[in-house]
């Protein structure tokens, strides 16, 4: 029965990982930009939830509604004003740009919030839910469900809406999309905005479980990276499967090899996938 509990823990973690990776994967796939800022956006979203709760009494789950439009606007403006200027440059140059922006943002957060780890504690706590032999804290469970809902919403936006189809079209063939009348620059900015939105909205969810500090930004970024490779780049179902897979692997890895090796295991997994199935678990032709 221990395995069942570990599996449940892994899926809860994995649901959150999906949400982290979906936006990162979207931006990478559509813009060919590796957004190093992604981790810091998550942390910033976490701080928004923390201070919103501590200072203003806004429930962390409700703060997602504030974070979403805020981060979308931030991402849109950043892409329109800055990143679009070098979108045609090789991927390493845009990576350097977002790396530089990330240095600025994470250091600004260090200056503003210090490197102290802060933990968001709900008062009163939401308690735990016992499903037979499996016991789950309710706050984690709700956070995971919200994370999966957000990821699902992104998937529906991309597959069902007009702007979503335009994003996918630009990802597959920028020039052909332009011939359909798609304003590619605008689509880029919207895509980057959606990526930032996903990061900013997953911040409050992660803050329910993990302590918040500017130092955790690179950790989340690393996870997003592994998941993208694991699930296949640029597809939301890929991020979802990759996220859940990573969560489960880390959970069992912690059990079998000790929690200190969980991260090592995820990067070993990354190397194995790169060797065996470089297109990712859900890689698909035309998405290369």
């Amino acid at each position, binding site marked *: 029965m221990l395995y069942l509990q570990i599996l449940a823990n892994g899926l809860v973690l994995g649901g959150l990982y999906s949400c982290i990776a979906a936006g990162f994967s979207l931006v990478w796939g559509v813009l060919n930009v590796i957004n190093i800022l992604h981790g810091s956006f998550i942390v910033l979203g976490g701080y928004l939830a923390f201070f919103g709760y501590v200072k203003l009494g806004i429930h962390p789950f409700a703060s997602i509604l504030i974070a979403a439009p805020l981060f979308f606007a931030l991402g849109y403006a950043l892409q329109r004003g800055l990143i679009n200027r070098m979108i045609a440059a090789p991927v390493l140059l845009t990576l350097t740009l977002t790396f530089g922006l990330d240095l600025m943002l994470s250091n600004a957060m260090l200056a503003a919030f210090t490197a102290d780890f802060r933990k968001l504690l709900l008062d009163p706590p939401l308690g735990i839910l016992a499903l037979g032999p499996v016991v789950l804290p309710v706050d984690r469970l709700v956070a995971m469900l919200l994370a999966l809902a957000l990821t699902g919403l992104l998937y529906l936006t991309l597959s069902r809406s007009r702007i979503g189809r335009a994003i996918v079209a630009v990802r597959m063939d920028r020039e052909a999309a332009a*011939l359909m009348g798609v304003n590619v620059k605008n689509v880029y900015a919207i895509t980057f905005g959606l990526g930032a939105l996903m990061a900013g909205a997953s911040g409050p969810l992660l803050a329910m479980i993990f302590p918040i500090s500017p130092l955790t930004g690179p950790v989340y970024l690393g996870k997003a990276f592994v998941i993208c490779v694991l699930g296949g780049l640029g597809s939301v179902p890929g991020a979802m499967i990759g996220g859940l897979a990573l969560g489960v692997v880390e959970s069992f890895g912690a059990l079998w090899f000790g929690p200190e090796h969980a991260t090592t295991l995820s990067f070993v997994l990354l190397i194995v996938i790169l060797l065996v199935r470089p297109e990712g678990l859900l890689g*698909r032709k035309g998405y290369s």
Partner: protein
Amino acid sequence: MAETLLKVAGLHAGYGDVQVLWGVNLEVPRGEIVCLVGSNGAGKTTLMRAISGLIPARGGTVGFAGENLTNASPERALAAGIAHVPEGRRLFAAMSVRDNLLMGAYLRRDGAQAVAEDLERMFAMFPILRQRQGQDAGTMSGGEQQMCAIARGLMGRPRLLLIDELSLGLAPAIVDQLCDTLRALNREGLSILVVEQDVATALDLASHAFVMDTGRVTRSGSSAELRDDPAIREAYLGSI
């Protein structure tokens, strides 16, 4: 001759340091099918790309139905009524056939009902696309992909359809079928400018032809005139 729909005058264009078009003049009368022929590297595709706004003009003008479209964005060119079916078809490979067609209607603002009706029209015109509508466009045969690409262009409700390399890589029976479809569309009032490497097919389809060579239009006239021109016969049709 009918009134001019598309008028390209003295057009210069190219890529980076390479200039491809050197003062191209070309006209498409309203309601006609016009073909553009010429050897590889003559600049046919570049001309199409300059007309639809994918690359800027370095000189000269593109006029369309009284509007100046010189250096217009592809978005503006399409909104004005020019749809471009690009060389190699360029379908969205991992998108369903249906979604590809909906992308063609991206700029339209006349409502879901009108788009759905046009989708139905495309399925009536190319029944195979109805069967394949849920399938990834990239998994279809070349002929089916060309049908999808043409239908995608038509979904934008253009007045002028540009088709770059209609028959390239397709079986003769499919080419005949496509030509019949284009003739039918033309009878309904659509003007068409088609780039075609098979000169016999091109002259058969079009009423008027332009011949390009090294970035310039070197010859133009009615298809009948060009078919009887000894130089054209020698160069493109094989001497008989």
